[in-house]
């Protein structure tokens, strides 16, 4: 059921505008010049990771009390959007740092937060989010990695696949089955742990070669009897599934922000091209078929952006409809990014297909926003459920 | 009726500043038109030269000898004397230039006397209610005419608004002293440093040839200077050129630089974004050479030549030299 929105309208605060502009400057001056090379080499940009740390960008999602800057969800998304405009891989560094920390931020004890957050905020440590397995993508409850209690430890055995930053992280938020009892409720089987790596039994067994986001290492992680102390468990045993769902409510906007950024970046290139390129004696942007495409690209991007910002404000305000907002903004933004980048290639014609211009990379980068953090199909299920409720 | 004063600012070598000659001309004309007395005031360690020059524009000149002006910043020295004079005199208007020294004097005198200030005058007329001062505001978007609520005040006047024209007869020079409380602190000048490349105040130039980002580097400004020489003008620059270190800040035209009104503004490789436009949009004639026909300057220039500024500039230089050759 949809409740009345609160607050009824929003405006970027002066602080958020300043912040957005500060990140934009950094993105334009320091990140954008590296984007093509990152894609070509497929190497994780350590220099940009260090830049984000040095500029306190990685501190945005974390509470001031633990060394962060205490940014709201919208503030973090503004930063992800600006970075992603220049380079989707770099935008993801901030997005994953936030995403993977969310279980700790939502359900961690003060002791746990004090232990781990300061170095995450400073960017000294990176953190990855490990839910997905080879046989469990959309179906989170079907994961098979086990965490068995043994004295004061848990022993984790299993493997995770498609883990962003899995090979460069210092901490991994791992979701594992702690209750294998077939009669146990599906949503109470999982628990969440923070695994500090390297550690005996932990291995990165594979790095994927991807269509896009090529500078971001996507890893397969093997846990072969990895011991973690009970103190590393986030929340109570059995809380894992709900924690994952709550995490998605706040992490999906981050991916939506990445998608909006990618779309805007592609639109900027296409619009500039349409202004400069002349055929048949005039700017191609003055031909209606091209102008129409660009107009649709702009409207699509702006719609996705406004929905994202609104969703962030609603979620931050504690709306009971957080899942609906987060799924909806990610759904719209991902589709927007794919459409806008594809059209951007079209506007550039042959030049859009070669790497002399960045739009082909942006199109390849955009696709993932329709796939990860919940496929578009999953997002639709979430929205539909919010709309229709359950069958009484 | 009160007199109209002009406070003469020091020019190079103790002479009269160009702006003061222009202001004196305007003051003479206003005084004649309204039946008032026009008085020029010179404050200097040795006012003789400047006073003699000023007397070719005005019937009456007060020459105040002030040794402190040798090694103290002039504006506070002059302001002290003006404030003291105002203890016994009551002019209807006091004119100064709208440059650095003039503004400093205007501010100090205004604070100590409560006289209002109207700034950057481009034209002055006189009504029954006192001076009516015209100025360009908002970067030239609007022309306003304003007056003083008390019917009298201080007016700062832009360069190149009046042409300096000497009077038919030479005026009288009267040595004056201005006694009174010396309430304004003076500032010591330890050293006056001349830097290579620094020229006369660019606001005074009748022709300015200006270079922007398109010039590409300090060497490129060689062409700008050659064209300025060939036209008998000064070299100006956009902020981009100054920030890149190709030319000193003193020559920057625009919002955080100088506002100019030459007869000709020739812009090479300048896009004409608003921060620059506000500095030169009231120029008599604006000619731009730029590769980019979408540049904002193409919309408000009188003549826009599309092309490579070095090629067009070189061709122009050849033609100009051939004419005077």
């Amino acid at each position: 059921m949809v409740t009345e929105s609160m607050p009824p309208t929003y405006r970027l605060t002066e602080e958020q505008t300043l912040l957005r502009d500060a990140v934009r400057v950094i993105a334009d001056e320091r990140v954008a010049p590296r984007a093509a090379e990152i894609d070509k080499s497929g190497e994780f940009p350590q220099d940009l990771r260090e830049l984000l740390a040095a500029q306190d960008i990685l501190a945005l999602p974390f509470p001031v009390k633990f060394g962060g800057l205490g940014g709201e969800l919208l503030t973090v998304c503004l930063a992800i959007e600006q970075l992603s405009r220049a380079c989707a891989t770099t935008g993801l560094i901030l997005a994953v740092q936030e995403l993977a920390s969310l279980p700790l931020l939502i359900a961690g004890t003060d002791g746990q937060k004090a232990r781990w957050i300061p170095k995450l905020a400073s960017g000294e440590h990176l953190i990855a989010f490990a839910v997905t397995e080879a046989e469990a993508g959309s179906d989170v409850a079907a994961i098979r990695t086990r965490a068995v209690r043994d004295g004061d430890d848990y022993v984790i055995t299993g493997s995770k696949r498609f883990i962003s930053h899995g090979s460069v992280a210092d901490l991994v938020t791992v979701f594992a089955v702690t209750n294998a009892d077939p009669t146990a409720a599906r949503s109470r089987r999982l628990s969440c742990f923070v695994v500090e790596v390297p550690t005996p039994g932990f291995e990165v067994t594979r790095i994927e070669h991807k269509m896009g986001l090529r500078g971001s290492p996507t890893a397969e992680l093997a846990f072969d009897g990895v011991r973690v102390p009970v103190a590393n468990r986030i929340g109570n045993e059995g809380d894992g599934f709900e924690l994952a769902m709550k995490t998605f409510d706040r992490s999906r906007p981050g991916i939506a922000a990445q998608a909006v950024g990618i779309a805007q970046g592609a639109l900027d290139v296409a619009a500039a091209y349409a202004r400069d390129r002349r055929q048949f004696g005039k700017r191609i942007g003055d031909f209606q078929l091209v102008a129409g495409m660009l107009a649709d690209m702009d409207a699509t991007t702006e719609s996705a952006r406004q929905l994202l910002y609104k969703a962030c404000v609603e979620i931050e305000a504690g709306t009971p409809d957080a899942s609906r907002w987060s799924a909806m903004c990610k759904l719209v933004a991902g589709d927007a990014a794919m459409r806008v980048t594809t059209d951007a290639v079209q506007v550039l014609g042959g030049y859009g297909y070669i790497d002399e211009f960045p739009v082909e990379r942006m199109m390849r980068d955009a696709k993932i926003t329709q796939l990860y953090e919940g496929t578009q199909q999953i997002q639709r299920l979430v929205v539909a459920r919010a709309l229709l409720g359950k069958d009484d | 009726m009160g007199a109209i004063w002009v406070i003469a600012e020091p020019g190079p070598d103790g002479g009269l500043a160009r702006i003061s000659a222009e202001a004196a001309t305007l003051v003479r004309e206003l005084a004649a038109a309204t039946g008032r007395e026009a008085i020029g005031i010179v404050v200097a360690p040795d006012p003789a030269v400047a006073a003699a020059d000023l007397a070719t524009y005005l019937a009456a000149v007060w020459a105040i000898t002030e040794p402190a002006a040798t090694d103290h910043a002039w504006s506070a020295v002059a302001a002290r004397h003006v404030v003291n004079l105002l203890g016994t005199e009551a002019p209807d208007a006091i004119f100064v230039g709208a440059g650095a020294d003039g503004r400093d004097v205007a501010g100090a005198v205004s604070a100590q006397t409560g006289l209002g200030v109207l700034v950057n005058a481009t034209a002055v007329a006189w009504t029954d209610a006192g001076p009516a001062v015209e100025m360009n505001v908002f970067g030239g978007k609007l022309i306003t005419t304003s007056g003083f609520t008390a019917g009298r005040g201080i007016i700062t006047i832009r360069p190149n608004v009046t042409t300096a024209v000497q009077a038919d007869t030479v005026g009288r020079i009267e040595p004056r002293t201005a006694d009174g409380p010396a309430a304004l602190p003076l500032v010591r000048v330890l050293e006056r440093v001349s830097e290579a490349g620094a020229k006369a105040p660019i606001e005074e130039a009748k022709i300015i040839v200006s270079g922007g980002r398109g010039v590409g580097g300090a060497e490129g400004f060689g062409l700008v200077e050659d064209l300025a020489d060939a036209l008998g003008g000064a070299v100006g620059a956009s902020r981009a050129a100054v920030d890149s270190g190709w030319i000193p800040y003193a020559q920057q035209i625009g919002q955080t630089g100088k506002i100019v009104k030459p007869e000709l503004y020739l812009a090479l490789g300048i896009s004409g974004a608003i921060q620059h436009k506000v500095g030169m949009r009231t120029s008599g004639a604006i000619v731009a050479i730029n590769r980019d026909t979408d540049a904002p300057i193409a919309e408000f220039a009188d003549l826009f030549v599309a092309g490579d500024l070095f090629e067009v500039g070189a061709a122009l230089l050849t033609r100009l030299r051939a004419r005077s050759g």
Partner: protein
Amino acid sequence: MRIVVLVKPVPDPASGSERLGPDGRLDRAVAPNVVNGNDEFALEAALKLVEAAGEGEITLLSMAPANAPETLRKALAMGATRAVHVTDAALAGSCAVSTAAVLARALRDLEFDFVLAGIDASDGVGGIVPAAIAAHLGLPYLSYAQRIEPDMTTRTIRVRRTSPTGYDLLEAPLPAVIGCTQALGEPRYPSLKGIMAARGKEIVTRSLADLGLDPATHGANAATTALLDSTMPPSRGATEIVRGTPDEGAARIVDFLVERRII
């Protein structure tokens, strides 16, 4: 080292949104406002001096309408310590003379070693307020600064004042007022930390009553100048655009200059 930086919110010059209000003065309700350009150079100079000294405080002082805190936030984010905001409905429509008097009065309540101010503001471009403030306070005024060097041990300050031929090296005892120019250096972009920290910084509001000043003798009631008329400048006419060879362009320029009697 205690520095006060005068900061004036002005309509963003890049937005081209400046216009007169119904009272014949600049309409300050037109958004968006930014910190006056020259004041940013002044603030940057202050920040550099504090950094070099390893200690110091920077207080922003602003006389502005009620919505100024939004604009002051960027200046606080750059690193100023706190802000004092003088605001009063009666101050709307103040002329430069009144503004200087009010700011001088507000400065009397602050402790400082020197005051930095942009030499002029992009909205009025008068350039007289800092000199007037110094005169009110009986302080030396060192204007058009391209370099500022305070010496806290001897309590003096040296300033390079831009001159037509180069610069004059000025010196005065502290406290003093210094007029700042762009030549002092590009203002820093606030860091993220600075932006977030600005939230916690104090902005003290002072009304005319707080300053012990009579509304009847300040603001629009006491304006020394008044607008009589305003008009649009005559349009320049259409731009003549010349494409062709460089020599053709050059020839047209020469003809144009002859037509206009410039050569």
